[in-house]
Every structure is written in C-alpha cells, then in structure tokens.
C-alpha cells in the first residue's frame, strides 16, 4: 500500500518529510517517486550524490524515468534552487501536467549563514509557486542530524508535514503572504573590516579598485573579477534605487571574502534576485547576476534601508548542472 496516493494535487503542495536516518528516508521518498512515475508524472529529485545512489538502487527500473540533480551543485547558493525548479516546471509541466519533486536544501554541513538563506528559500518557494500550476514538492529533513529549531522552522515554511508515514497540515505554517514578507533576520556583526567607504554616483570605479585589491590580498584572485562585477551591480542599485548613495564594507571570514552594501532603499520584491530575467532589455538583472556569480547573497529589508552581503570563497563553487531532458 502506498503512503502517497496518486491523487492529483489541485495546487502547489509544499510538504516537509521528517525522517530519521537512511532507511526512514527511503521509506518516505520511494513510494512518492514511484507513484509519480507510474502516474506518468515527470519527477525531479535534487539530493546529495549519496542519496541519489541510494534511491537509484531502491527504485530499480523506475529510476530510469526519474531526473536527478546534485543538490550540492544546484543549491550551492540556495537562491539558485527556485530557478532550477522553475526550469523543471516550465520544461516538463506544459498544459498543466502534474509534476513531482524532491529537494533537500538543508543538511548538517550547511554554514549558519547558508542555513538561514536556505530557510528563506523554503519560505519563498510558497511565493514562487503558490499561485501557479499544481505540483508537489517534498522536502526531506533529517531529524537525527538537524537541530530541533531547524525542524520547527520547517513546520513554519511547509503547509504539510509528513512524519512516521502520517501526513498532517502544519498548524504553525506561516501562510503564503507571510512567506514573502520583508526578510529582516539580523545579520551577525563582522570582525575587523578590511576596507570601508561611503560611496555616491561617482565612486563606482573606486569601489571596483578597492574590492579587487582586497580580493587579491585574500587569495581569491581567480574570482576577483566575478566579485567585482556582482558588487558593482549592487552598488549601482544603491545609486539608482537606494537613495543615490551607500556604504561599502569588506571583511574576511576564514577563506571567504564578504562585501556588504547598505543603502536607504527598500527592497520589497522578495523574488527579484531569483527570477530569471525576461528577454526585455530593461528588465532588472543585477541581483540575479550576483546570485549566479557569488557563493551566497544575503539581502535584508530593515527599517533603515537595505543590506546586501556578497560572499565569495577561495574555492570555486560548483556551478549549476543542467537537468537532463525527459525523453
């Protein structure tokens, strides 16, 4: 008997799967995948390489009908996951065709900064797909390895929660509207800044020189041009939309260089940094580009203005892998 009946969902269904260890993971995911495959629904699984291997074995012949992608690549920067799901839905969900997905963006090794951005990502999924076509996304959470507070947040960002093979509506789900509310979780105050400057419309070139110098000094020379390009766009936003000026701070955290821009603008389009730019020449592209180039982008909407932090690690990030097409 199947845990997940193949009954078609009538709207986007965002469901957390709380599992304890590998066997529980398989029990919770395999019937969901299999039911999708047998109903002719395209299924995309974005998981770790290890879990993909487990699933391939457990699914046997059904695995050939499933698309797999490595979450370590797709979700290295969590803001790239929604675009990947968008691609899947638009490529395979023509004419309202039902689809299923499994995505596990949060694992034990995520840094504290990444974890918070992943949690924001989980909420933004509701905004990105809540008004669109019906499809079913299952997000596994490992209760043996993740903190209780992380599981608690999963209950707020998912409308449904499955645990021990029982599905329930989450009674603390924050709802569609609150999922896209201004994000104002405090950012930790950094240690000593390597560089700091107030900037106005005539200072972009100076900003580029400053960041380029610090990137070289921090040993991320190979990625300096990407960081400079991303930062230039963020600072340009301050000049054009954020009151005409801003302040820049640069510091290092282990092998990561962080650049922060603060301005008096108000960032109130929660998906603006993760919606693929339209073909229109005038469509905004700056924050989207920052997410494609940087390892992590943190955006906060605070009463006094907007803060954007760009993170660039010494090691190159894994780039988004192309999802193979379904035949």
């Amino acid at each position, binding site marked *: 008997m199947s845990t997940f009946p193949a009954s078609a969902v009538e709207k986007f269904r965002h469901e957390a799967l709380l599992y304890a260890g590998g066997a529980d993971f398989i029990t919770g995911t395999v019937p969901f995948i299999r039911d999708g495959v047998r109903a002719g629904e395209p299924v995309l699984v974005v998981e770790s390489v290890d879990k993909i291997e487990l699933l391939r074995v457990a699914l046997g012949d059904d695995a050939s009908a499933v698309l797999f992608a490595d979450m370590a690549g797709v979700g290295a920067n969590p803001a790239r996951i929604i675009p990947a799901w968008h691609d899947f839905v638009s490529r395979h969900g023509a004419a309202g065709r039902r689809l299923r997905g499994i995505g596990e963006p949060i694992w034990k090794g995520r840094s504290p900064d990444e974890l918070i951005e992943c949690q924001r990502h989980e909420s933004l999924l509701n905004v990105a797909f809540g008004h669109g076509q019906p499809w079913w996304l299952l997000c596994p959470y490992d209760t043996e390895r993740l903190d209780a507070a992380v599981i608690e947040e999963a209950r707020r960002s998912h409308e449904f929660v499955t645990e021990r093979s029982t599905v329930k509506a989450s009674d603390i789900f924050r709802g569609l509207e609150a999922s896209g509310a201004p994000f104002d979780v405090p950012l930790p105050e950094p240690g000593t800044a390597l560089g700091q400057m107030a900037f106005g419309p005539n200072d*972009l070139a100076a900003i580029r020189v400053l960041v380029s110098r610090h990137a070289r000094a921090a040993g991320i020379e190979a990625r300096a*041009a990407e960081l400079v390009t991303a930062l*230039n766009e963020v600072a340009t936003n301050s*000049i054009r939309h954020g009151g005409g000026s801003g302040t820049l701070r640069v510091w290092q955290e282990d092998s990561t260089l962080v650049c922060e821009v603060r301005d008096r603008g108000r960032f109130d389009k929660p998906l603006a940094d993760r919606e693929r*730019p339209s073909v229109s020449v005038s469509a905004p592209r*700056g924050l989207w580009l920052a997410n494609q180039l940087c390892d992590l982008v943190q955006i906060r909407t605070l009463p006094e203005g907007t803060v954007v932090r760009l993170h660039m690690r010494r090691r190159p990030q894994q780039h988004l892998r192309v999802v193979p097409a379904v035949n």
Partner: protein
Amino acid sequence: MELLGGGRDSIDDRLDAALEGGIVYADKLLVVTRTEDPTGLCFAGEIDVSNSHAVAESLSVTEGDGADLHLDLSGLSFCDISGIRSLVDAAETRLSGRLMLHGLPELLQTVMKATGWSELPNLHICNCRGAR
C-alpha cells in the same frame, strides 16, 4: 565628457580621424575609437552606469551603410549590465546589419549568458581575437 565625432564628412576629415586614431568618445574610464577595416569601433577601458550612454552615442556617429558593424571589445577591462544593455539595445534598434562583438572578455560572455542576452538575432559574438 565630450563627444568628438560626428559631422566628419569630407575625405580629408576622415583621413585625419583615422590618422589621429579616430577618437569618437573619451572620458577618464573609456576611450572609443573608430576602426576602418572592418568598419566599426574599438572600446578600451571600463563601462559602467556613469558612461554607458557612450555606447549609443558612439554608435550613432558610426552607422555606416547598413552593413554589419564590428566592435572590438578586447580592450574592455570592465563592463557592467548597463553597458551590455546598451549594446543589446543598439543591436535591437539597428535597421539593418548586425552588431559583431569581437574579443569579448570571457567573464562578459558568462554574464551575457547568465542574464539571457547571448542569443540575439542582431548581436553576434565572434570567437576570433580582436576585430583587427
């Protein structure tokens, strides 16, 4: 910011322009010069929101005869989205002939691809090195 081009009609003027490097636009970040063979412009330096208007201005004085226009971008050490947007805009508003981009730095190619601007009918990215 001064615009030095435009209105060069006589053969003597054009010869002068070619001899002096044919500067079409110059500011402290960017120099744009005319190129004769192939017909086009050479951009050297940096383009950002402070001077991206130079792209359209320079192109407007180098319309040629409707044939393809060649832009040598191998000397661009930086170009932001507003600069790329100006190139795309210029390509899309051309009545005839394509805008051929030569020597496009690798990062700019990545940026154009990431921002959905790499496959446009009137904008062609040439993989040769430099326009000349």
